[in-house]
């Protein structure tokens, strides 16, 4: 499947995007997006095109993850300079909707220990649900730092009614190899989900937030 977008073209576009961002320096870290245009797909009939995919390199390095941990996880978070809250701290919010909303806004994502995650509805109510930030499970069997990196490297995509989709796959400070690999992985995964695979793809572009779109396919 990757041969539909040759390595040459992929690198050419990646380099163009990175070059473009270096030319005109912006005051924020530009995101690099993959834009996919579909064909032979009917949103009314065909299966919903959405999901999550884990990339190799973190596309949003500034993403802040907070650990809602049991004793062990809180100790681990403290040792690794990771923001955390324990059950007591959550209880202090008293299920106050404004405070829960504030907490949700403060971080981009949450991870919670098994014992805590089961108490979230009772401790916090549906505030994190509404914000789209319900915590992911942090098991004791996995490394906290690794899991956080996984969360940071996972992107969501959802196509709604129109036949095009845009996914953040990187940023302009990445080196060409990293960006190319992320783009390659994303393309492979997204195309693999389509019923007719490449026959459902009309076009592929990548672009930085403020830059011009570079056509991959």
């Amino acid at each position, binding site marked *: 499947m990757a041969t539909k977008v040759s390595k040459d073209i992929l690198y050419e576009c990646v380099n163009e995007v990175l070059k473009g961002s270096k030319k005109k320096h912006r005051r924020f870290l530009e995101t690099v997006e993959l834009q996919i245009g579909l064909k032979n797909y009917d949103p009314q009939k065909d299966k919903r095109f959405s999901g999550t995919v884990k990339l190799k390199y973190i596309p949003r390095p500034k993403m802040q993850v907070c650990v809602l941990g049991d004793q062990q996880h809180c100790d681990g978070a403290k040792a690794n300079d990771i923001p955390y809250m324990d059950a007591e701290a959550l209880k202090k919010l008293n299920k106050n909707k404004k405070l829960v909303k504030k907490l949700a806004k403060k971080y981009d994502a949450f991870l919670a220990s098994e014992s805590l995650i089961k108490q979230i509805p009772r401790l916090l109510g549906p505030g994190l*649900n509404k914000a789209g930030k319900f915590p992911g499970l942090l098991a004791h069997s996995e490394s906290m730092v690794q899991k956080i990196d996984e969360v940071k490297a996972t992107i969501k995509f959802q196509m709604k009614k129109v036949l095009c989709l845009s996914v953040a796959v990187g940023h302009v400070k990445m080196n060409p190899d990293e960006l190319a690999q992320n783009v390659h992985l994303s393309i492979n995964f997204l195309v693999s989900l389509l019923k007719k695979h490449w026959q459902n793809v009309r076009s592929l572009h990548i672009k930085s937030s403020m830059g011009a779109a570079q056509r991959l396919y």
Partner: protein
Amino acid sequence: MFEDDAHSSDEENPVPDSDSCKPKELNRLFEQRIEPSSETAASLKRTCGLHLALSNDSRKLAVGLSRKDLQLYDLGTNGDLVLSEASFATYESAIKGVRFFGTDPNSLMVCTEEGNVSLYDLRSGAKAIHVFDDTSEGPKKTMTAFDINQNDRVLCASTEVQKCGDTFLLFFDIRERTFLGSYWECHSEDITNVKFHPTNPDLLSSGSVDGLINVFDISKSNEDDAMQTCFNVEDSIESINWHTSPTDQDWISCITTTNNFHLYDTETQDMIVEFDRAKITESMKRTSSIDCNVINSHNDGNGGFFLLAGSNFNKGECLRSLKYDNKHFLPHRNFLHNRQIIRASVYNEKEHCLITTGESGLITVWRCEGSTDQPPSEHDISASKNLKQKLHISHRSKPY
């Protein structure tokens, strides 16, 4: 340098999907080989079958088509399907769900995208006897799915994310025909499925693109208190189903839009097992995970459940079921001569009958012989010969 996803095909000509073992081995693993008892084309015009509902007496089948038509069929005990109404109702917007009452084979409900849930009494013709009105604040909400609770008292319809940014679960009292209220804080994206518990009238589950499965006790007075459990699947959810464990605990399963399957225990709130599409493909004895189409999970009437899955390759000719057994999916039934990519299925637990519909607009009835613990025998071969003969006779129902 490029670490390709092991399941994607990185060749000039990707290898087409096929069985991962020889026919002899396949037949040994899939002891039950089922042929269609009957198959009907919903329409001569191109259409896709997207919703199925079976009445509680198992004799009526309602089919929701992508053409926005609702059709009715009579289902015989011998598996024959006879068209009753080719176009019982036609709607302005897409059909999003069809359901018969649990206690009445003549009461049928249909939900459409524009936000109407219509109630029909099949004995009094095709005009809806009531259309449920959402009297909540704001413009009419676009609906995505619905379900009715165990005692046919409460209707719950789920919505897409509305312009205001909220996404809703709308509740109606079916008997009183009134709007009861809504939940609107429990999800942040389109809610794709709602399922009431099969026997507990107060237990409801919802699944969403946001990756959450919520379980509610709707007897509680407000949303905060009603929300019992949240499972974070961390992937967009397509559908959810209730099952029971061998020790009678409640289980919830979900199928994601990425063709993964997850199973959760609602009592312990733990995830029991998850299968990605690669694992499911392997269990199905196919080679191409990118063509895997995970359709539905069904309770088998013997306390267990099975997963229905197929391949998109070659117009969905591969259709199989896998029986769940202690964190594994075992080869179960091989449905032969399937002719379309399946998009909806219902399973009649009492009569062991599977009905499917899909992208070619065909409705197929698969009668499965007896229980799942039947040993393989010569009997299977002669039984399928009889079914083959039946197939020729049953194409007598035409839409007009």
